[in-house]
């Protein structure tokens, strides 16, 4: 069966590594045989967060990638056939929103991969609500999900929303 890929991206500190560690059943590593099977040999020398989640016969590969222009080249390979993109954003760091919007613009205009915005750090004292983040990013409010990537039951929320929107 073709390996399924999920891409996790977003500004530094948004919770990408945490999410992948929480969801993953394998040790989170940056380079391994599974990774090269799913994204091609060329990229496996680049340090990517990588984890897997097995669901019956399906193996879901989860890749974390920093949202910076010097990693543009990786997107071509990562996005090819990917199930979806989870863009993570910190609710308490409005200064990272412009960078997040640039990542989303790139995803929307360069790939055919559907996205969901995961809004983290909602437990902090002063935060943007998920629908406010969606407004800034120019994406419909149902595409933004608040969640805590440190918690196993919470961590699955953005993925569930993605699948719900895709299956609708």
């Amino acid at each position, binding site marked *: 069966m073709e390996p399924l890929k999920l891409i996790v991206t977003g500004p530094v500190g948004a919770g990408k590594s945490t999410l992948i560690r929480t969801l993953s059943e394998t040790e989170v590593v940056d380079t391994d045989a599974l990774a090269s099977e799913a994204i091609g040999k060329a990229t496996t020398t680049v340090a990517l967060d990588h984890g897997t989640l097995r669901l*019956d016969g*399906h193996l879901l590969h989860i890749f974390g990638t920093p949202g910076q222009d010097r990693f543009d080249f990786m997107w071509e390979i990562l996005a090819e056939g990917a*199930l979806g993109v989870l863009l993570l954003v910190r609710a308490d760091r409005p200064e990272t929103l412009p960078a997040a919007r640039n990542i989303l*613009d*790139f995803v929307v205009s*360069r790939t055919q991969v559907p996205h969901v915005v995961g809004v983290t750090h909602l437990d902090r004292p002063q935060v943007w609500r998920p629908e406010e983040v969606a407004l800034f990013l120019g994406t419909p409010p149902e595409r933004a999900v608040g969640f805590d990537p440190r918690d196993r039951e*919470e961590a699955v929320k953005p993925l*569930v929303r993605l699948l719900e929107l895709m*299956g609708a």
Partner: protein
Amino acid sequence: MAIFGNLKDISLLDLLPLLSGQQGKLSLRPKRGAELLLFLNNSRITCAKKGEAALPPHRVEEELFGLLDRPEAEFAFHIGDRPDRCLGRLDLRLEELLLKLSTLRDEIQSVAGALPLPDTVFAFADPGRAEGDPELRDFVRLAWSQLERGTSARELAGLLGMPLDRVRYLFYKLRALGVIQPLAQSPRPGRRGIARQLLGLLKRRFRTWSWSH
């Protein structure tokens, strides 16, 4: 005696004021690309050439802007040299040019993290909104056919011979004004089945989370 060195050590913003009282030829050799020749006289650039071509004023600006951020580029100033022939004489005041270039650079640096990514594809939303700003209006006219069908900063920078960050900055401004917007691709079809299947599996796996929303 000669004034020579590398722009990575002595920035253009230090070099040009130094030369502004002199008459002569400034040669700039970037690591990649053709040599740029500037003929200076009386605090002005009177002629500029890249390879064999004489450059119009806006191209001189673009070239110098591209050299602002201390790239590797050898420079040498030859006092007294004059252009033997210059098609398209210029009268660019160095002081004004420097002021303009450094302002522009500061603007770009102030929004550096917010610049659109080089490969994001943008297209017109409402081109009329660029009319109020002469710089944006001119840029929009230059890029009209590309922005009608959709283009990236990288593609345009290549086509127009402009520095990539300059184009990203113009895109940033145009987007803020609602002149352009990212051109969305339609999502890859035919994945509804697998999505539903995975969703069912996830719901069985993760039980404690409430599924009502």
